[in-house]
Structure formats: C-alpha cells, structure tokens
C-alpha cells in the first residue's frame, strides 16, 4: 500500500474547505481541552477528598483495638512496648502517630459540648491536619503539654478565648468519670468547621495521666507516594497480633466509594464529550467524501485498491483528530496551570465539607489521564471515519465517475 502517497493526499485534503475544517478542528480542540481540564478537576476533587480523609486523623492505615469502632472508649485501648514500631522502608513511610482518642464533654463558663478528646505527641502529628494547621495562640509543645488546643468553630460555640480555662470530663480506665481543668493554648483552623467543632487536643501523656493508664486507642500510619496500604496491612497484621488493622477505605467507606466513582466519572465525561463530537466528525467526513466522490472514483479507476481509499479517509480523520488533540491538550494543560492556585469554592464551603473536601479545588494533572484522552480520542477518530470510508468504497468507480 502506498502509505506515503496516502499520507500526502490525506494531509493536503485537510487544506480543502479551510473554514469547515477549521470549525471542526476547533470543536475537537474545545472538547479535548474541556475533557482535559474537567478530568484535572475531577482528579483534584478525588485526591483532595482522599487526602482530607487520610489527614482527618485516619492515615492510610490505622491500628485499633477490637471493637473500638463500635465503642470508641478508653476500655478499647491497647499498650505499646517501647520499641513498638515495626520495620517499614523509610521511603514508603511518611510517619506514625500513636494517640488516645475518646469521647468527652467540654465545658466553658457559658456552654457545654460533646467532643472527641485526643491525646497526641505533636512531634508525630505532621501526618495529620494538625501538622499544617494555623493557630491563633500557640500549638501544643510536646506530649506532656497540659494545655489544650481547640478548633476555632468550637471556641465560638463555647464563647471562650485563648488563655481561658475549660473543664473536660471523660471516662477513666477504671470506668469512673474523670474531670480536669485545661488552659487553652490556642485555636486551630482546619479545612471545614466539622473538624474544628469535634476535635480537642492535648498532650498524650497528660491524657494518659487523666485516664490513669499508659495506653493508646489508635496508631495511625501515613505512607508516601502511591499508598501501598494493602501490602503493608499484612505486615502490620502479623506484627500487631490481637489488634485490628484497617486501611482508609475501610475507615472512610464513603470517601473510598467517591474515589472509585471519580475514576468512572472521568470515563463518563469523556464518553459524553466525545460522543457528541463524533457525530460532527462523521458528518463532516461524509460531506468531504461525497464532495469528491468523482476524484475517489478516478483513483480507483486508475488502480487504487478499495483498501487504500479506506486508509486515505481514515488517515484524514486521524490527522484532524491528532491535530485537534494536540492543540486541545495544550489548551487544557494551559487552563490547569492558570487554575493552578485552585478554584475558590468558599461560597459552597458547607456542601464541599459534606463531600469531605476543602473549599479550594486545585486541579490535578495526571499524565496517564492525558494519555488516555489522547489515545481514546484517536481511537474515536478512527472509528468515526470507518462509516464515511465505507461509503467512499461502496460506490463503484464507474458510478463515481458518472457523478
């Protein structure tokens, strides 16, 4: 097959009817750019949701006492030896955090609220939202800090200020209530008021003293790069015998389901956009083929095989698609960079928070998505050209020459 000739003819045929081909090219560009940008927004949404879920004291993997999820009390706790951390390759591990997290009641001079009281070692909390949080006042100094940090939203509910005292009541290891006064070190800001209202932090040793037991209710593990939680889960399950090892999908099933849905959404969005585009492409190609049916007839009359005519039409579509995809991806990537700082969705912050997202949507460009868009677009382009190509060879050379 004279491929060079077919490439030459197909490329030059694109220069015919410049306005019509330009309009089609623009349609492809807009569709591909739209898909590229939308995909990056969906990925941004997807990974923001995952990161929020992981940073929300969950981590990629968490170790809990059996029954803790049903009854999150100090009775569902466990002890850890001094050298409790198993060997995990440093490049896979972002960090560990051992905590106590139990329900409690917090009281100010004016209000009372139910909270999750969390004892932490601040040095370990780079793996959670607490590590990046901004404070009004001070953060906790160390694991023995006897002060508390509370969320700004909770502070507003309690009508309190930095430096004032709060009383917290929780259940001790012996089942009896413990009551203790704490001075407020600072207010933290978190993504979403839900976290700010629910979590109150103090040093873990302080909370262990309060419940009168040197125990922990959870060990949270954050991994680097692509989470390998499933392989590490097996390692941890062997190491922490008698405890429950869960990954973030099991701990945050709603976020995990949304994560999977986002993968599907990328395909659905692509199919909708390309589906609409294909009709335009088929229509234009049929018009182009019918317009030069005499010429195609002549080509066949002088000896071009039907297969070569099909390849010529397919190549035309492929070239058009390739050009459109290249420009479209360029525009899409440009849009992603323009929106690189993120799209401010503060107006819909409450809804975003319910979806487990921050109020700023940062698009996330992923090379496999670009390859997918480019590859599938080319496949669609070829498929769209098959019917016009078939129309081109269905007419006999003699019929074509008579037109």
């Amino acid at each position: 097959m004279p491929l060079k000739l077919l490439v030459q003819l197909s490329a030059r045929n694109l220069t015919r009817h410049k306005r019509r081909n330009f309009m089609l090219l623009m349609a492809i560009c807009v569709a591909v750019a739209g898909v590229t940008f939308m995909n990056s927004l969906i990925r941004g949404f997807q990974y923001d949701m995952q990161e929020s879920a992981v940073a929300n004291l969950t981590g990629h993997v968490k170790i809990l006492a059996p029954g803790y999820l049903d009854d999150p009390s100090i009775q569902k706790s466990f002890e850890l030896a001094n050298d409790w951390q198993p060997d995990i390759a440093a490049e896979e591990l972002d960090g560990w955090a051992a905590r106590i997290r139990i329900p409690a009641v917090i009281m100010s001079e004016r209000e009372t609220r139910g909270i999750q009281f969390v004892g932490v070692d601040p040095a370990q909390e780079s793996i959670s939202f607490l590590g990046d949080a901004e404070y009004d006042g001070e953060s906790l100094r160390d694991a023995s800090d006897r002060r508390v940090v509370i969320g700004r939203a909770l502070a507003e509910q309690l009508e309190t200020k930095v430096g004032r005292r709060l009383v917290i009541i929780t259940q001790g290891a012996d089942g009896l209530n413990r009551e203790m006064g704490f001075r407020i070190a600072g207010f933290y800001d978190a993504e979403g008021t839900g976290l700010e209202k629910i979590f109150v932090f103090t040093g873990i040793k302080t909370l262990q003293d309060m419940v009168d037991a040197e125990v922990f209710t959870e060990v949270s593990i954050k991994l680097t790069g692509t989470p390998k939680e499933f392989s590490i889960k097996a390692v941890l399950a062997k190491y922490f015998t008698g405890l429950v090892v869960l990954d973030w999908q099991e701990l945050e099933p709603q976020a995990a389901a949304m994560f999977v849905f986002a993968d599907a959404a990328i395909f659905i969005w692509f199919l909708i956009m390309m589906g609409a585009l294909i009709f335009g492409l088929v229509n234009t190609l049929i018009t182009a083929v019918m317009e030069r049916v005499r010429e195609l007839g002549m080509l066949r009359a002088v000896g071009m095989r039907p297969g070569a005519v099909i390849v010529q039409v397919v190549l035309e579509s492929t070239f058009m698609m390739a050009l459109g995809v290249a420009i479209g991806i360029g525009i899409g990537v440009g849009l992603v960079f323009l929106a690189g700082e993120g799209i401010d969705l503060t107006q819909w912050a409450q809804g975003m928070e319910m979806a487990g997202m921050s109020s700023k949507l940062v698009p996330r460009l992923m090379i496999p998505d670009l390859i997918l868009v480019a590859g599938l677009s080319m496949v669609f382009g070829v498929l769209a050209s098959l019917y016009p190509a078939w129309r081109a060879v269905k007419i006999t050379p003699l019929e074509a020459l008579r037109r």
Partner: protein
Amino acid sequence: MTEVVVRCCGVTRTYQDEAVPVYALRGVDFEVQRGEFVSLAGPSGSGKSTLLNVIGGLDRPTEGSVEVDGILLNDLSQSELSDMRLNKMGFVFQAYNLIPVLSALENVEFIMQLQGIGAAERAERARGALASLGISELEHRRPGELSGGQQQRAAIARAIVTNPVLLLADEPSANLDSQATEELMELLRGLNEERGVTIVTATHDPMVMGYAKRRINLRDGAIVEDTINEAIPVAK
C-alpha cells in the same frame, strides 16, 4: 506478426430498468491489435462508453468475455481488476479528473507511487512525460491553475507514464476547443505512431474520429460498421 491486445466475444451488457432489461451492448465481438488507434463512434446511447468501460474493467459484461493482453477480465476480483488497470492500462477522462491538491508533476507521479516505483525514477519519468507533452514548465502548478488543454495534457501524461499496454480515452475532447482538440489528437497520434501505444477512444467528435486509424461505429449496443480510416490528417 500482429498481437491481440483486446478481445471481446459476445459482450452483452444489460441494465435493469424496473422490470425491463435495457441493452447497452448486444453481443459485441471485436479485437484490437497491438499498436492500433481505434475510435468507438456512435450517437449518445449507442454503447460506446459502456464498451470502453467494459474493456477497462470498470464495468462487467452481463454475458460474453473480455480479454486484455491475454488476461480474461470476467474472472478477476475488484482488487485484481484494480491491479490490472494500474499496470496494463492508462485512462484519459472527459473531465481530466486530476487531483486538485497535487501539482501537475505529482499528479503524474502518483500512479507510479501506486505501482511502488522509487522516488528518483518516478520524478525522472514524470518529468519526461510532461516534457513530451510540452508542459514541463507547468509541473508545479495545481490543476486549478492550468487551462483545460493543459489539464488534459497532464492527464495524458499520467496515463502514459507507466507505459500501459492500452490507452483508453473517453470523450477526450469533450471540454476542449477545436485548437486544443487538434493539439491533443496530434499528441495521441505521436504516442501511437512513435511509441506504439495502443489507443481506444470513445467519441462523437469527428476530429477525434478523423485521427483514428480504425473506426468502429455502434448503434443500439451493436457494431454496425468497422472500417479503416484512409483519410488521416497529415502530421504537423
């Protein structure tokens, strides 16, 4: 010793018009020898173009057989017919049918590209063909930039560049004025006499018929007269 290039035996071609068959050709028998210049003549509807198309493998006879250069066309597939046309025949069409996005040189070259001939040989032969037809200075012009006569010359160059066994021309002068027609026929005569190209034309133009050595008249799909032309114009 003569050699048969075209042999038609009992060629019949019917078209179905509703329930009634319409006869375009009715049992045509004739042969064309190598080096002949034959004109198929007759009024519209006489079957001359149909016969030319059947010889060229663009149409199949309903009955009878057609042989070109010893190959029976009836049994060939579409792809085999394509190869036959590519390698054994040259076509000159009424409307030139050059490819508008290719230059005159590229239009002549592309047939050889289909044949798989290398770039250097293609260019040399295409330039030679254009030069022999007197339009070598127009090789970079596209068809839209050429006159009707120049386009027809380029079309002839495309048809002869592969040294076909048979050159088929369907109403080659239909879109040309009398001067361009005369020039065209001088070219065809030169090809026939100097290079021995076998030519079959379908025409109702008396000037074209006048240049052919043999004239076959058709009427209602049948040959009514097959004569040798004794009054060919003197070469200019």
